[in-house]
């Protein structure tokens, strides 16, 4: 039985269709990512799954319980970390944690095993007010609070948004270790580079799912030839390539530009075109598309 089943769920706020006929399922013990920008409908979908909102249409179950009918029973089985910092800034680290433990009818000691690895980093600051913690520490505390009752499924809504790259990486490493304990996790993120850390991902855009697959499966959805191009003057390179007759799309990707071309274009054609325009230090190499390439292609072609 799947841990999360979403079956044709739709939800609108007034005339805004936040989620449109979304279906997906998450297996027990899976680390599943919802990848998409703001306004993709990730948060709405989360709120439906943690019983805070009712879907307009369709149905969803989490660990076999219906999110509408069995919402009471479900609430003690899920852990939820909302998008924004949702702890009490005027309570200390320890007070926050013990409050949430008691609310869920347990204690810090009872489930300490599950949070130990994360909590040891917080322990030196256990008497500090949560509001005075750094971004990365707040995030760890919020994760501890969401885990303290040993939930069967953990919902993490944009846990890494606005957090620096180092804290983000640490956070994903923590999730990897939780995965080893067979915890089912649904995580959303706007950062495409985090998708590779999930078992499977769903790409979302404006309330719809563009694709569901493993990260490498999503990468292979991109079938056109793709080149990474680099030259001394990046801005002029973009402008020239966009004007080129063989160019379909040209976007900046880190230090390279990612270029898709018309059928039959060879690297030699591109090279000749650029030399004619006096570009120096030109590098052109065929590459395998990444998740972000696939996302952009899917955005444009549905």
């Amino acid at each position, binding site marked *: 039985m799947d841990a999360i089943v979403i079956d044709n769920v739709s939800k609108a706020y007034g005339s805004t269709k936040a989620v449109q006929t979304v279906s997906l399922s998450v297996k027990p013990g899976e680390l599943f990512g919802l990848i998409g920008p703001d306004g993709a409908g990730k948060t709405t979908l989360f709120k439906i799954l943690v019983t805070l909102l009712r879907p307009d249409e369709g149905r969803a179950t989490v660990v076999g319980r219906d999110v509408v009918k069995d919402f009471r029973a479900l609430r003690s089985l899920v852990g939820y970390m909302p998008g924004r910092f949702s702890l009490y800034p005027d309570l200390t680290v320890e007070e926050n944690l013990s409050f949430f433990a008691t609310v869920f009818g347990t204690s810090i000691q009872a489930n300490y095993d599950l949070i130990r690895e994360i909590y040891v980093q917080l322990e030196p600051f256990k008497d500090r007010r949560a509001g005075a913690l750094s971004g*990365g*520490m707040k995030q760890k505390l919020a994760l501890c609070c969401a885990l303290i009752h040993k939930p069967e499924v953990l919902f993490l809504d944009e846990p890494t948004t606005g957090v620096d*790259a180092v804290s983000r990486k640490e956070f994903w490493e923590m999730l990897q270790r939780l995965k080893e304990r067979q915890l089912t996790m649904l995580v959303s993120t706007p950062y495409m580079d985090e998708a590779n850390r999930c078992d499977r991902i769903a790409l979302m855009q404006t309330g719809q799912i563009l694709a569901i697959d493993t990260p490498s499966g999503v990468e292979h959805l991109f079938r056109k030839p793709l080149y990474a191009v680099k030259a001394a003057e*990046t801005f002029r390179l973009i402008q020239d390539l966009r004007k080129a007759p063989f160019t379909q799309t040209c976007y*900046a990707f880190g230090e390279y530009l990612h270029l898709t071309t018309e059928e039959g274009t060879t690297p030699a054609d591109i090279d000749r075109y650029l030399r004619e325009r006096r570009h120096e230090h030109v590098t052109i190499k065929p590459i395998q598309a990444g998740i972000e390439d696939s*996302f952009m292609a899917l955005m444009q072609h549905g």
Partner: protein
Amino acid sequence: MDKAVITNKLTKKFGDFVATNEITFDVAQGEIFGFLGANGAGKTTAIRMLCGLLKPTSGDARIAGFDVYRQTEQIKQVIGYMSQKFSLYEDLTVRENIRFYGGIYGLNRADLKAKSDQIIEQLNLGSVADKLVASLPLGWKQRLAFSVALVHNPRIVFLDEPTGGVDPITRRQFWDMIYEAADRGTTIFVTTHYMDEAEYCNRVSIMVDGRIKALDTPSGLKRSFGTDSMDGVFQILARGTSTK
């Protein structure tokens, strides 16, 4: 003098806490300068001092030649600022927002009119020029906020995590605008959590615990730290020090 920013041992202390510790760097006119660092590394404090919003404890800094201690009013005239929480008024229309910000910087009626028309045409906002900003998609707001930050033709524009939360295509369209502005000679001073965006900068500085730990071109940094991505450089420099 063609340096947009020059700092020398710029320091800010809050009580015993040294938020920014003797940072020294300069930024050329028309350069895209990436200002990276972990949360709490002191970026925000540094930017506030450079914008003339916070008085340094010690050290010097000049913005477009103006002194950050004494010439804060002049500095405000030559800088633009845009943060992730765009400074646009959601309950004003596109045109009203442009006119408001233009008005703040003392543009006259004719200039305001010309500038509004120019921005609206450039951004292709003609059909929504008289619609409330609240009704625009995030990506459009973002580009409008950037144009508004440039409305008074500042010499330097500070962008504080400008691309958070938008889709990958919109993010790149935004960077196209940044390149264009830099090409016209505006200095871009940008912070971001997207490490691939660090690669788009001409030079990048990385702050750790109040100090600038590295400053070079992206390829120079990658070479000296022996990794193939800016993320790798960042992880090496900032790891272990962010857990405070």
